[in-house]
């Protein structure tokens, strides 16, 4: 079986890898990040939650992206990213509808 340029063996697996490391990581990063100021401590100035979240944005993406590339079991990376996305998505929804 021919190995693809990126070391994947099936065409389908290559596409899945890039869908996970590309769009899924991007959306998960943005949703996780936007929820951060809700749980990061505000600190004495009342701004730490915003400032620390801003700093975290490139780092969250970098961690998730490299994780998605290196994880052998694709279903596991997909599952973890989905779990992050859904849990933070729910938190975001409640923040804006004011249900909590």
């Amino acid at each position, binding site marked *: 079986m021919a*190995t693809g*340029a*990126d*070391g*994947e063996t099936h065409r389908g697996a290559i596409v899945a*890898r890039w869908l996970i490391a590309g769009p899924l990581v991007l959306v998960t990063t943005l949703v996780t990040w*936007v*929820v951060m*100021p*809700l749980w990061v401590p505000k*600190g*004495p*100035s*009342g*701004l*730490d*939650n*915003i*400032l*620390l*979240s*801003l*700093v975290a*944005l*490139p*780092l969250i*993406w*970098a961690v998730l*992206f*490299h994780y998605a*590339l*290196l994880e*052998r079991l694709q279903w596991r990376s997909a599952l973890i990213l989905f779990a992050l996305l859904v849990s933070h998505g729910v938190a*975001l929804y409640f*923040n*804006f509808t004011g249900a909590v």
Partner: protein
Amino acid sequence: MFALPKVENKRMIAVHGWSGIVLGLILYVVILTGMLAVFAEEIGDWSSGKVDHSSALSNPVDSIVTDLAAQTSDEYKDEVGLSTTSAGNLSVFFHGHFTEDGGSITERGVRYEVDGEGEIVKQIEGSPQEVFGEDATRALEDLFVDLHIRLHIPSPWGEIVTGILGLAMMVAAVTGILIHRHLFRDIFTIRRKTNEIVAERDRHSVAGTWSLPFTFILAFTGSFFSFTIAFGLPAMAMVAFQGDQEAMIEAVVGAPPEASDTKATGANLDSILQASREVAGSEPLFMNIIHYGSDVAQVNVGHAVEDGDFFRRTFGFDGATGEFTGEKPLVGSEPSAGANLVGIIGALHFGNFAGILSRAIWFGLGFASCYVTLTGIRMWLRRRREEQTQLRWLEKLTTTIAWGTPLSIAVGGVAFFLTLPLGLTVEWTMYGFLIGAGVILAFVPLLTEQRLADVLRAALALCLIGLPALRLAFGGPGWPDAFAAGDAMLIAIDIAVVVSALVIAYPLYGSRRFSIPHNKAVVAGPAE
């Protein structure tokens, strides 16, 4: 150093290569202009002919502000900002805060520029953008700083692009470590006896390994700034303050004291400046007065970054009594971990925390990053030269961008000096840059890659040699003026520009392939 399994290693190599090949050339433009931006202020002063670097706040300002206040409309007298203009004049901006129909808060006011004799040389009314506007004497500096921040793409899209480029640079650094099996064993070796591909690979990985920690730091801090400007801050404010703009501004700049209708003469501003000078041990750079002329006035005085500090410091004073009220944090009303972190990120990105020494080092790091980017792209293309001849255009494009970017900026510099006496620099520096880029692109199909590289090198060297000459020819201060004013930087930049020109031109000297008809070099670089 790391032994990734074969499949993962191959995937990492692919990601490293593709992130470089797809975004590397634009990334190179951002890094190159970033390298220049380390000395933006000095290059700005050099190009505008400013040799007097003293702060306008070193002279008495109290009576000037009192006189200006007397002729300013009351609605603008809520806040006053004092700073030094690029021409060395005192800038005094009286402004008020107004709530618009949609609920957003805007600033409007009147700005005066007062020269050393106390005469008003300029007076403009409007928003901060309108009254500060584009400074014609800083157009050359703006050209490359704007390229670095947003590639001249309108906000927020330009910042989003540079932010993504920062992420790509982070990816290249991380995957670069992961795929390099002998990270430390190879740091002294550049093999030249073997073939050119191996030598190119060694040059790339040696430079990459040495500059690795900073590649990551500069990329990470850069994307932080890009994303924060582009959408980060508004998005965070939306979530944290649920869209309450006033609450956010209060949190960021600290809640202003309640306005008071009780008038008060207030403490003498010159005494406050003197007190601040004593606390900080340096000259004040700017001063801000909140609720001017009332009994609750607050005065903040900002100082330059001192050696051994990461960021500039601001000191607070009671406007009515002149009493020192304490040091102000960079962001917010109380010192906090977040504000310190943001301050350190700024210092690490700009390299401005230890004067000329730290900036010279950051310039070197920028140069190393440019080198790593270009050698990486070349290596990727060389390896595929045999089987993929259709990629030859990309090799030529790499050469074009590598030399064409600094050349276009230098042509922008030529246009800047030519139009400086006419006051048309804001438009013409940009036109010069675009004309330079256009002429270069027109030459690309006419020449072989090697000849193109030689022509661009020669043109760049000519343009650079021409810059100090034009600066002097169009009324810029000469070395005696700089000596008299104690300004070594102007002389240093003149020398640096000429030396770079010689270094760039040197490989062409005596080279067999160098036989450009003279007129071509002149067309590509209209410096002469």
